[in-house]
């Protein structure tokens, strides 16, 4: 029996599946092992509360969005647009959560990481790529 009732994720789940198809069609190198799956797994490991799977999806999409945008110099068209797409899917899951603390947590992470990445060199995000998960987890009920 489910521990908590699920929030309906059919629409963003379909968008997420579409995102992977668009990724393949764009001809980009596929997601790395430390990207989407790893973020979702880490989120599930950290959080056992309500809407757990939606939280994993939020983290997956956020990680994919950021990873793609870090590749924009190498693949300006595909990585920029696909990253924006995954941000859109991330947003769709986020509104289902309807959690102002979670919104603030992610907005803060994104503002900091984007600022640091804009000024940084080409070696990837300036902070630990998964740090956002623990920050976001803090925003959810214990």
């Amino acid at each position, binding site marked *: 029996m489910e521990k908590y009732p699920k929030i309906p994720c059919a629409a963003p789940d379909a968008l997420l599946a579409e995102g992977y198809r668009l990724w393949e069609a764009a001809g980009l190198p596929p997601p790395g092992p430390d990207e989407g799956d790893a973020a979702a797994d880490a989120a599930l490991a950290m959080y056992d509360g309500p809407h757990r799977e939606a939280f994993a999806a939020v983290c997956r999409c956020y990680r994919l969005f950021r990873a793609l945008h870090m590749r924009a110099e190498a693949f300006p068209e595909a990585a920029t647009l696909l990253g*924006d797409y995954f941000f859109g899917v991330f947003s769709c899951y986020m*509104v289902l959560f309807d959690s102002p603390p979670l919104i603030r947590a992610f*907005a803060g992470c994104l503002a900091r*990481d*984007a600022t640091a990445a*804009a000024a940084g060199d080409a070696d990837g995000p300036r902070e630990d790529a998964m740090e956002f998960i623990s920050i976001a987890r803090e925003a959810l009920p214990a």
Partner: protein
Amino acid sequence: MIGAAGKLDMPRAADIREGIGDEALYRGLRTALAATEKELLRICGAAGAERMRGDLGRIVGAGGKRLRPTLAYLCRRADAARGEALRAVPLLCMLELMHSVSLIHDDVVDDAAKRRGVASVNASSGARAAVQSGDFLLAKAMEKLECYRGTGVNEMLAAVSAEMCRGELLQQRVRHDADAQSEAFYYAQIRSKTANFLSASCRAGALVGGLSEEAANRLGLFGDRFGLAFQILDDVLDFKAEEAFGRPSGQDIRNGVFTLPALLCGDDAVRHLLPKRNKTRREIRSIVARVRRTGALERAADRVALHCEEACAALAPLRDGPAKRALARLAEALAERAREA
């Protein structure tokens, strides 16, 4: 109505005092847009790196039509409120931030040197900085989501955001592909890229204003038809860019995007030339000249007029008032511009 940047320059509702016809509404709109500008510039100034502050301040501060916030504001007042009206300025900011991000990121995709008459972020600071600057603005847009929980606005804007990107990705994939780019595909694309967002802006304004679901749907329909007209006209003007703005016509054709005038022209030579990659300037000029000779621009302009009529018809059931009239005036101005084109 051609702006300095050589793009469709709609008369801003804030500047059409006579068209609005109501001093209180006009003052309200001007005040709301001024507050929005102030917040946008504050956000740009809050970026944690000097270069990003400069880049964002330059792009956002260069102006722009502020069409989405204007539509949202007018829609908020376009019918009787049935429920509580929420603050408008966070929504207006969110819409303009989303639009700014799409412009900054589009410039990366298109490797564009200028935006709104000033250097694009990617031209001044590189693709990486441009993408990340846009992401900073996304973070700031997210902060506004709290204001509209439970209204349906956040869900709608999130869905529109994903759809816009999906449309762009599909378009990138079928560039130069004449078989894929049918008229139906074109309409689906301009819905994804333009009309959906304008429709959502209108609908969001209505929801924030506490209007009924029916009124919100009507205003969403207005935004959809207005958005179609707006994009088609923009595409028509691309064929006249040389004499109107002093820049080469046919940029869409060069990029392998077949807009409505090219699709309507029915000229065999054009059909043969369109899919060719790396067209010479002469070939593009030839296509533009042929499209113009067949009357395709006029036929596309007729579609603009048709969609403007549809937009105005969508408003008909709403209560008569200054905001409704101002929206109709915007649609009429677009149709007039199409007749002049």
